[in-house]
């Protein structure tokens, strides 16, 4: 890891997009997340790292209320998006998820054509007035996901026929097409080879110009490469949160240091 590069990385200040305070998550009797408070900035890539089972994916899924689909899951505490409480009864979780998009660990394209996969969100939310507008959204999203060149001649073919890396970029294009404000990525590269990983990382770097991106990753190199902010989770606790450069070179907590240097995990 190139430590010098990390230290010298410029740190811009952005306004806070998501603010979580005192969040606890329970799966039945299991206390999965313990009193986590964190703020996520706009136009920034935030990485969640930590050993398996530390609760980083669970916390990520709280940010767009995906945990609502799990019956035994209970979330307490306050999470705001643009100063609006997302667990307020007035908030429609379906609308929220349109604003806070999600990309999953395993590529999960729908069994539809490439075009229909990308057009899925815009169609549901009525983002396109007519066919040509929809075409435009699809092309733009595929271009942003660096997939347009590879698939522009076979948009009608099933999305499931693409390679793993292409499928994951298709899922990213699908998420981007809905025009979210925040993009949550749950280990988006864990099923990909190094080349596809590099492509997705490049893409994340571009996406941060418009979105706030939160990425869960097991690869500390990846967190160091793509993120500006890093949060380290351990056993359901948020141990340390700060500038990526600082976390990786000069962590305050001994647990963070142990994890980064490979002593716990």
């Amino acid at each position, binding site marked *: 890891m190139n430590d010098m590069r990390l230290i010298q990385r410029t740190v811009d200040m952005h306004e806070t997009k998501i603010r979580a305070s005192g969040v606890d998550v329970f799966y039945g009797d299991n206390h999965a997340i313990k009193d986590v408070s964190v703020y996520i900035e706009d136009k920034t890539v935030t990485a969640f790292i930590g050993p398996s089972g530390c609760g980083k994916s669970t916390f990520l899924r709280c940010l767009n209320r995906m945990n609502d689909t799990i*019956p035994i899951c209970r979330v307490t505490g306050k999470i705001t998006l643009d100063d609006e409480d997302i667990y307020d009864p007035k908030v429609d979780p379906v609308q929220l*998820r349109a604003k806070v998009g999600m990309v999953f660990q395993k590529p999960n394209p729908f*069994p539809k054509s490439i075009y229909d996969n990308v057009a*899925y969100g815009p169609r*549901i939310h009525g983002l396109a007035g007519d066919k040509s507008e929809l075409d435009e959204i699809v092309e733009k999203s595929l271009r942003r996901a660096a997939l347009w060149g590879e698939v522009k001649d076979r948009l009608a073919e099933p999305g499931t026929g693409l390679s793993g890396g292409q499928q994951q970029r298709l899922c990213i294009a699908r998420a981007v097409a809905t025009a979210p404000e925040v993009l949550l990525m749950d280990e988006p590269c864990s099923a990909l080879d190094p080349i596809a990983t590099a492509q997705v990382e490049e893409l994340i770097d571009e996406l941060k110009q418009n979105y706030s991106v939160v990425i869960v990753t097991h690869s500390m190199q990846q967190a160091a490469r793509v993120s500006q902010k890093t949060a380290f989770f351990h056993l359901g606790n948020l141990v340390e949160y700060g500038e990526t450069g600082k976390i990786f070179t000069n962590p305050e907590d001994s647990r963070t240091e142990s994890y980064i240097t490979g002593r716990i995990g």
Partner: protein
Amino acid sequence: MTLTWLVLAVLALAAVGYVMGRSRAMASAGGEIRALHSLPRYYGWNVALTVLTPAFGLMALWLLIQPVFIDARISSQLPDAAVSETTTRSLVMSDVRRVAEGLGQIGASKPESDPDEEYLSDLKSRLGGAGVALASDIDPAVYLAAERYRAGTAIGASLMWVAVLAVAVGGFAVSYLLTNKDFRARNTVERGILLVLIAAASIAILTTLGIILSMLFETRHFFADHPWQDFFLGTVWSPDFRGDSQLAILPLLWGTLYISLIALLVAVPIGLFAAIYLSEYATPRVRALAKPAIEVLAGIPTIVYGLFALITIGPMLRDYFAQPLGLGDSSSSVMTAGLVMGIMLIPFVSSLSDDIINAVPQSLRDGSYGLGATQSETIRQVIIPAALPGIVGAILLAASRAIGETMIVVLGAGAAAAQFDRGIGELVNPFEAMTTVTVKIVSQLTGDTDFASPETLVAFALGLTLFVITLGLNVLALWIVRRYREQYE
């Protein structure tokens, strides 16, 4: 009886083989199990299987072939004079078999001299007393043939005893002598088990083949007597046992398809919606109660559904729909049978679809929810398309059930074939009585009729046509399921 003893003898030999094979293996290893290639019981099984498999295989073959062989021999020896103008050789042969069987039952011994008329008429009354009723007096030639038949069967049975026991003992000897500590008994038993499994699978396949062949033969007889154009292209079904019948499949096929269509129109939406509710919306507790409750419907015998149609649904439809609307006044109608059959099919559609919807990976649902889709949007646009091949398969399986259904139709829709000459209005009126192919197959085969007439043989042609249609549907269903199954993998 003798067959039972033979089976028991072979089984006993196998049991002895198990014990002896096992102890020989142990002895060859000096009582040390670790010195053996396989566990001791494998050596025992090896001997037992080598005794059982060839012996029982030979026995099955022998039992199949012996009657055919003896029949052919006796039949060829039967003088032409014994076959009078009014009968056929096969009818005479069935007399021969019955006399031979009767002789065995009354334990008659062969007379010293050639039998005279007196002896034969006495024999006939004795046979009658034993429950073997014969229409006419016994022809001397038939009597001789029957005696030969009896003798041949007895010789065959003795030969079978000898051959089967020889094979069993031979298998015993060979496998017992092969048994020593280095013999790979485990691998041999593995192959033996494989053979048993293959045999089981072959029986299932061969039975299907046998059914098709027997249908084909009878159907050929039918088409030899009756023009196929009339059967496939005619429009009138009016069997007449004095001859001059019009036997067209179209009126029956129309009834079958119409009733099946209504049944599917009932079963597919209800079954599918029930499946969606159970798999996507219901809480685990509701699901645990509702799924078995729906599946109870599948366990009700179709005759009970038929009674329900006859005494409840039929009169209700007639009183509240058909008569007020002026569409007819019969309680047997296409609608009655279709509705009840639809109810019968609901569990087929819902249970299969439920399994298929559950098999759609959770990641697809997450993907859709993650884009801000609601539950019903996710179901409509992601889950149903992903599960569609399986659902289509379930529907086609339900369709083949509907096409083959008989009891509900007899009691719900009556037994009168559709009449094409009465005009299209009556043909498509769902409150008209109508009947299906299966019902007519039953009614053509039951009753006191000549088995060789086209009016009876038409049942086989109907059955074969139906078989081809349902086979086609099943093949189509399998093809669709296979073709699209791997989409989310």
